[in-house]
């Protein structure tokens, strides 16, 4: 993956989030506080506007992370931001990265999310997409498969009772609604597939 593709990923992700901003807010309104689309849209808009190629994937990944950290706010800002800052450490100070290193960085980032957020699969958070997705990739599944599956994993949060994040306060009333962070994460995987192809 080139640095250009990496930055394109964030452009496409931003577009998708903006296109789904209302949906994301409404999902969050049902089981949270209704701002997930606004938060992600605001932060990604700033990434798109402010982050320029640096000739180094490590630098640009870190820059995207820092930007999200300081502009998204909320739970998702802390998780996305610190995951990317952490992942950048596993990326080379070079304008391109191979699949193996990219996977290592992904693992690093998801590990950071898990450590920071203390959520696991089944807690009805975006981890319900992140964890199966990196596991699938690690076990050799194609990005196409993962990108398609991501939606399914996101949808499957509907039947769960939330144990982490704001939705957990609703207890069993959280059942029946898709987790907004899972949906935005699925959008990210779709954007990645569109940029990288297979």
């Amino acid at each position, binding site marked *: 993956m080139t640095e250009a593709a990496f930055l394109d990923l964030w452009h496409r992700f931003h577009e998708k989030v903006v296109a789904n901003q209302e949906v994301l807010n409404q999902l969050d309104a049902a089981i949270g506080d209704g*701002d997930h689309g606004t938060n992600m849209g605001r932060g990604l808009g700033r990434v798109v506007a402010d982050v320029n190629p640096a000739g180094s994937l490590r630098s640009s990944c870190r820059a995207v992370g820092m930007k999200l*950290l300081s502009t998204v*706010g*909320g739970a998702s800002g802390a998780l996305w931001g*610190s995951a990317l800052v952490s992942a950048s450490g596993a990326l080379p100070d070079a304008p391109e990265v191979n699949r193996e290193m990219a996977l290592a960085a992904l693992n690093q980032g998801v590990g950071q999310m898990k450590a*920071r957020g203390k959520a696991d699969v089944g807690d009805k958070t975006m981890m319900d997409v992140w964890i199966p997705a990196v596991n699938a990739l690690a076990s050799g599944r194609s990005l196409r498969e993962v990108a398609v599956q991501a939606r399914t994993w996101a949808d499957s949060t509907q039947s769960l009772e939330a144990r*982490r994040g704001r939705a957990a*306060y609703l*207890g069993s009333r959280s059942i029946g609604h898709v987790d907004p962070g899972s949906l935005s994460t699925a959008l990210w995987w779709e954007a990645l597939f569109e940029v990288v192809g297979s």
Partner: protein
Amino acid sequence: MKKMINRVEAIVDEALDGMALAFPAYVRRVPGTHVLTRATPKRSGRVGLVSGGGSGHEPAHGGYVGYGMLDAAVAGEVFTSPTPDQVLEGIRAANSGAGVLLVIKNYTGDVMNFDIARELAESEGIMVDSVTVNDDVAVEDSLYTTGRRGIAGTVYVHKIAGSLAERGASLSEVKAVAELVISRTRSMGFALTPCTVPANGSPTFTLEENELEMGIGIHGEPGIRRESVRPADDLARFILDRLSQDLELKGPTRLAALVNSMGGTPMLELAILARTVAHWCDDAGHDLRRMWVGEYMTSLEMQGASLTLLHVDERLEDLLDAPADTPAFRQGVSHD
């Protein structure tokens, strides 16, 4: 959505400027940030107190910056945790060498963003510690979940830890009293009407004319249960019983109580709740030492209220009653 604003995107920025312009003797805005800090810093060498969270809870938290309470307040967008860089600015502003205590309301977003800020501040050599307020009994407490939310009881932590810090206690002492307060504070609230987050433009839930949401948080989120509207007395007694159970009050106890408006409920109605709180205490033989009634921790224009009980002892009571002088909370005026 009808609000007295200029542009949705500018609300927090303009409101922070407004606070600094309205109360220049109390607070100033750290330039280029979402941080309000004291106009006159407290004596150097004292522990700094920093709190914050999403906007929309006014007067929390900027209204509590001043003598006897906070040293800095960090504001996020409406109902959105502030970002770590902003919290870091707050920590820097509050630090005068004796360290800084962060008072965090227990929401995943707040906790994580404050944690990251704390790591950043520590890497700059600032001594930082934190407490997490989780006074809301509406939510089940459990190690396996996010745990309970922090709501209006947070203001008791500001007040008591703030007064101890003002007296020159160490960071660990200030943290210890904050944790003591947290362990003895319980709250629960309800909504008669929802509120509208400006960025969304429509209410987060809808209620029929005869419905209320019981066990709400402070971000316009739905509560734990939808109920029929009932008389204020019933509502208050139901909540007070829950709080007292959860505090495991055995017999007559020394208490402080906070009757908090969610923002849109007028003082006339709060006073009716306050009456019931006093009667309930009387009935149970509790010694109600101090009552606060008003807007302390709000959810924009939501109508509704929360009740908080704090189990005080002599020392906590003394700190609770110590002078404070902030835009929104003042006490200890001497008469001549």
